[in-house]
């Protein structure tokens, strides 16, 4: 996945990826990544858990707007079922960093 991500970024479109295997992501070095230590086949969480799925997507977008280090991998604090997704504070808007 990271190889395709790198090509898209190289062509001028900013990207962020979700990773479930940190080792692969460290090796391939895509531009920006959020990592979740979750079972294969579940990068956004569990079926029907809308709050959980949104939390991962929104954290990925946050990294897209906050990261300044190519290859950065941000470990998300979500602990599968042992996290209260209702308590996650969703960002309402995301803006580019102004220099």
């Amino acid at each position, binding site marked *: *996945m*990271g*190889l*395709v*991500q*790198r*090509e*898209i*970024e*190289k*062509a*001028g*479109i*900013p*990207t*962020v*990826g*979700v*990773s*479930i*295997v940190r*080792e*692969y992501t460290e*090796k*391939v*070095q*895509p*531009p920006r990544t959020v990592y979740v230590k979750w*079972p*294969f*086949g*579940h*990068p*956004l*969480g*569990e*079926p*029907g858990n*809308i709050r959980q*799925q*949104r939390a991962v*997507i*929104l954290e*990925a*977008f946050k990294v*897209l*707007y906050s990261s300044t280090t*190519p*290859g950065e991998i941000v470990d998300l604090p979500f602990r599968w079922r042992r996290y209260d997704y209702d308590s996650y504070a969703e*960002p*309402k*808007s*995301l*803006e*580019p960093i102004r220099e």
Partner: protein
Amino acid sequence: MSQRFKNQLIAKVITRFPGLAKRFIDAYEPWASGEPTPWTPVTKPLSECRVALVTTSGVHHKGQEPFDMADSAGDPSFREIDAATISNDYVITHDYYDHADAEKDLNIIFPIDRLRELQDEGVIGDLAARHYSLMGHIDGHHIATLVGQSAKKIVERLKRQAVDVVLLTPA
């Protein structure tokens, strides 16, 4: 026992018992180009961005040719996904993970409904009409096809649709 059946069985076991996954993770060595990591800064607020998904989960429309699971080096081709119909017309061709849960809710691998909600709420600008799907674990001589052909075509199509931001999801 066929190789495909074995792969599907292993996928189910390691999804249920993630501790066993390490052996299979270590067995696959992803290809690294050694080139510097590319970087394109975001320049617009998210609320003005057109967003597309690119996934390596092997999801595609029922009428499309399935990914080739017989080749142990993977299938480097891609499928174009129609955002308007995928939620009601999808199949997953991928033997290397257990997709029983993704068959119940596509959004855990390809969060199209979640992005549509974020579009309706004004969090993202809008959702692209077309998205792109591949299968992961591409190896050997297929890497050149993946990077040199499939990725290039996906980029062209993203640009034609004026996509501003891409979210990538594995499986």
